[in-house]
């Protein structure tokens, strides 16, 4: 098959999640099978669960001239911008292309909503008024994209994509289109989603939160653990074979239900097949799939059925949500970076916390990491509203 898109070079990346600040902590966990999930508390949370919290987010200070962007989400973004030499790589790209020829596309689901939640909690009992918040710079869905542009000194085009849990996977598809259309030469794609009461109590109301550590693919799964993460990648239009490339993407809509995936994984299957077509590879060429793998019954069934209609039973898949939790709007970038770490380090991460495999799932997952060289890996991200995206990264 011929590929239908031009590959984008992954020049640099950075990642912060519950495993630690910087990619090396995630890579360590991919080898050791350790988890960043903790039976933790969160202010105003009155139920028991495991969380994938990033340490000391609230202590981060934004740059003096960007203080009005202060909220948990933008602080989490800054933690990621400050590690993995990412700022140096951006400065190099600015010297090469110019600050207005680098786009910025970020995915988030809840942005800086924590500020708004706290304002309602802190409402003046006498006057009924909310304490002052700067909504456009914190609560607004686009806030994190504008913060990242200013923090990195970039003035090109961009936006926030907010399609629930596929948000920061879909940024890759848009980035590819804008580069192909000539709107910029390089792009920062990323995702930032921080823990907030809305998602904690919202998922709890849907009875999807697990009291136990989350166990994707396990017969005794109880649901998700919510995590938080921020990750960014610098992509360029280049064909340097020493780098990993984004070689394919596929997007689709389930058109089925607002918060449940299609039981046969029909929407996911469309996205997966489109990604394979755009990359010009066959299902048998894929060496590893990082699952959406949330550990809800409906996701695991839907995803495994969608996969088994495309791949044969030998395909190696795992969910890494047992390590990081479900990082929602940042899940796409979190797991895209895990895929690039897998390619760079010839490692397939284990599907951890799995004790009793659910025999009803047609796709199997390894419980120990596998060390082997990889050429093509796929990452799946499926979200509320039936929004699906699959990405392919290749060596």
């Amino acid at each position, binding site marked *: 098959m011929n590929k239908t898109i031009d590959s984008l070079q992954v020049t640099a990346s950075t990642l912060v999640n519950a495993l630690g600040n910087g990619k090396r902590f995630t890579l360590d966990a991919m080898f050791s099978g350790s988890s960043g999930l903790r039976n933790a508390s969160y202010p105003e949370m009155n139920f028991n669960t495991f969380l994938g919290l990033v340490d000391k987010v609230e202590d981060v200070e934004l740059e003096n001239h960007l203080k009005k962007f202060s909220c948990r989400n933008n602080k989490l973004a800054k933690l990621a911008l400050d590690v993995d030499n990412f700022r140096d790589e951006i400065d190099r790209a600015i010297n090469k292309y110019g600050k207005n020829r680098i786009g910025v596309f970020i995915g988030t689901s809840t942005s800086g909503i924590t500020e708004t939640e706290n304002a309602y909690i802190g409402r003046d009992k006498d006057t009924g008024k909310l304490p002052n918040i700067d909504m456009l710079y914190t609560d607004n869905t686009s806030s994190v994209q504008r913060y990242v542009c200013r923090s990195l000194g970039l*003035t090109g*085009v961009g*936006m926030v994509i907010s399609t629930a849990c596929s948000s920061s996977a879909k940024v890759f598809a848009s980035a590819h289109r804008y580069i192909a259309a000539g*709107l910029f030469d390089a792009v920062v794609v990323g995702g930032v989603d921080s823990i907030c009461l809305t998602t904690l109590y919202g998922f709890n109301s849907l009875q999807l939160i697990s009291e136990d550590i989350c166990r994707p693919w396990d017969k005794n799964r109880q649901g998700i653990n919510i995590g938080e993460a921020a990750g960014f990648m610098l992509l360029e239009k280049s064909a340097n074979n020493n780098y990993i490339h984004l070689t394919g993407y596929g997007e689709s809509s*389930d058109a089925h239900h*607002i918060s449940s995936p299609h039981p046969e994984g029909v929407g996911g299957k469309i996205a997966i097949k489109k990604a394979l077509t755009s990359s010009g590879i066959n299902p048998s060429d894929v060496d590893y799939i990082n699952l959406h793998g949330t550990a809800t019954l409906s996701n695991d069934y839907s995803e495994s059925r969608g996969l088994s209609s495309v791949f044969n039973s030998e395909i190696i898949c795992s969910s890494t949500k047992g390590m990081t939790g479900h990082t929602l709007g940042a899940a796409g970038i979190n797991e895209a970076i895990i895929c690039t770490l897998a390619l760079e380090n010839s490692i397939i991460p284990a599907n951890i916390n799995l004790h009793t495999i659910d025999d009803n799932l047609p796709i199997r997952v390894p419980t120990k990491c596998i060390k082997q060289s990889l050429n093509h890996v796929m990452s799946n991200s499926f979200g509320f*509203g039936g929004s699906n995206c699959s990405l392919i990264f290749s060596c």
Partner: protein
Amino acid sequence: MLNNKVYINGIAVIAPGMEDSKKSLEILKGNMDWYPEALSKMTPSSLPANEARRTTTVIRLALKAIDSIDYKNDTLTVFASSEGDLDIKDKICKALSTKEKMVSPTLFHNSVHNTPAGYFSIATGIQTPSVSLSAGDNTFSAGLIEALTQVLIEKNDVLLVAYDNVIPSDLACFRHFEYPIGIALLLSMDKHLEAIGDIEVSVINNQKSVTKCFNKSLEKMRIGNPIGIGLPLIEALIKGTGVEIVIPYVNQNQLSIKVNNV
């Protein structure tokens, strides 16, 4: 930059005082002054009654804007909104400020930015990709550029709908919109029979004067809601030939749009 002509094969505007399409056309041609009237419930014809009952004003605003557009069932969609559904956020935050913190499951699953896109795909059965985006005050232009790149690169028709409702009372002192607006455009490489015009768009970073509404009575709406910056484009498509309009875009950039009607 985007040196390609893209056809606009359908347009619609939903706003207070602009629900009647004939009257709306006269206002956009500049033949009548605009004044606000209360919006109807905006029940979209695409939604079955049981789904419509669970929708909010924002979902109906987006879907009603699409209602009159004649799109094909393989169209791609772009949903652009600065704020998404603040009525839902207001209700969830109120629930979270109580001791019990009981959030309604329906409210939560309707709270994501792509909820209108989800209802659209369920109502129509369309399984093609859909992007839901925000760029704050530049959301309309960001939606337009996303739609244009999809037309040019995915080589498919794209239905763009940009919408923002007014802000709930508790939050209105922090961010204020005068009126709700929904604008829908059907963009395509091909000229359909019902084509309204074509556009050529460039991103410019030299500061030109932003185009104001030709119909001066619409200026209140242009500046009173982030989506309002799209109104001069709609006016130009309906009225003008060979005009260039300039609208704001992200990072102090602007979009220069050459508009020809057919």
